[in-house]
């Protein structure tokens, strides 16, 4: 029921058009990139999935990450803008369920945006690489993997938005962290597992053990942010 309520609250906020436009923009990136200069890609020796993901995923994941940041900010802005949050706090409903309800909406829309992106990559493979069933499987596996990689960012940004009453602060934090990824992306080690870096992981470039490690870290970070948010609500309740 909480998720259904969260969907209703987002009417007329520009949230759904933003996700649709952002998802389409991210999906258009590989089509335009490959369509404009196919000769740069079709003659490469790697598998189509590696070529396509390698050439496009960085831009696509950046756009989708930014979309997620904006989405999380809009969601909590509707709560804070006209003080609706205070009314919610006076109803028999825990703020934790509000938070996880919002996360579930973002989850569905992130999955939708990834499906659009996956479809665009599949189209590129079909059009320029005469790709086969193995490619199709590889692309959808990549999208599934990327969905898991987006989870820590999703929880992290929703948590930041729930803390900052001023949307511009949460948006600023999200944007700065996102730009940091472009500085950090060449460095390996522990920094590559930060929530804002995780969506940049390219599944076809990872071996089995690396992919499993990423999935475990993603699950751990997701659970960690969820737990931190619950602790934050407890602290807020006791110190206001």
């Amino acid at each position, binding site marked *: 029921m909480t998720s259904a309520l969260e969907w209703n609250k987002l*009417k*007329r906020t520009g949230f759904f058009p933003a996700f649709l436009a952002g998802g389409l923009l991210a999906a258009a990136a590989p089509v335009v990139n490959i369509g404009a200069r196919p000769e740069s890609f079709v003659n490469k020796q790697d598998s189509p999935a590696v070529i396509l993901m390698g050439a496009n995923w960085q831009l696509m994941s950046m756009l989708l990450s930014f979309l997620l940041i904006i989405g999380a900010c809009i969601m909590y802005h509707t709560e804070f803008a*006209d*003080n609706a*949050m205070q*009314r919610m*706090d006076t109803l*028999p409903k825990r703020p934790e369920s509000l938070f996880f309800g919002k996360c579930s909406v973002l989850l569905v829309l992130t999955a939708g945006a990834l499906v659009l992106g996956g479809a665009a990559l599949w189209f590129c493979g079909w059009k320029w690489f005469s790709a086969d069933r193995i490619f199709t499987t590889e692309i959808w596996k990549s999208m599934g993997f990327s969905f898991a990689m987006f989870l820590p960012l999703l929880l992290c940004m929703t948590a930041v938005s729930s803390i900052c009453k001023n949307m511009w602060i949460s948006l600023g934090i999200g944007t700065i962290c996102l730009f940091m990824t472009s500085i950090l992306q060449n460095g390996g080690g522990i920094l590559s597992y930060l929530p804002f870096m995780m969506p940049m992981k390219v599944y076809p470039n990872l071996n089995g053990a690396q992919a499993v490690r990423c999935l475990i870290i993603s699950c751990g970070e997701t659970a960690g942010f969820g737990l931190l948010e619950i602790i934050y609500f407890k602290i807020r309740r006791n110190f*206001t």
Partner: protein
Amino acid sequence: MNIIETYHLTKEYADFTAVADLNMHIRKGSVYGFLGPNGAGKSTTMKMFLGLTKPTKGRFTINSNTFPRDRMKILREVGSFIEAPAFYGNLTGEENLEIIRKILGLPKSSVSDALELVGLTQYRKRLARKYSLGMKQRLGLASALIGRPPILFLDEPTNGLDPVGIHEIRTLIRSLPKKYDCTVLVSSHLLPEVELMADDIGILNHGRLLFEGNLQELRQMADFEGYPSDNLEDTFLAMVEEDNRKRGAGK
């Protein structure tokens, strides 16, 4: 029988005491007028009742439920309107109430019922952000009244209303105990307003309860203490002034 009782309820911030050692008693089925100048601690007290802020000391019971153990139970039985109207500006008045209805698990008819009670039926499809101040105030009241809760906390509910609106809301509040067997705690800084609505009143100044009782008892106390008693507003002002003077002397 008292439905709400506080025991030495205190709220302190770093260097400021908002509510000090408050012992309140609100009878079931009464309208209790909570009176005090701006910053007296009325809203803070109501916020403590709703769990929006935690008491520093003391405790309270609402319908035999204690805070914080029974907070959810308390919130189920209470309708509230605190400080300013709180709503989703991107939703219509009706959609705002629909969200509250779903959370409280009320029947669908409760939305139209609440809109009717506050006279917003014809504006139910308008976006809440486009409401006038008075209409926002009415929407806030409707969200407190939805489902006809047994206890209502209304913090300065007539702010921003025109004289006709003030009269309507006042009449509505006055009628609630009889109509719906409801107990109302209504705060105001205007004694004439409280005088017309309340069965009992509590006068708060700088977080301290200066008086609690009915209007008759207030007059008797004023006579006894030598405050003017012909006009209750003068009584209130004299009490507050005297308290401020004592505080000044104490410091």
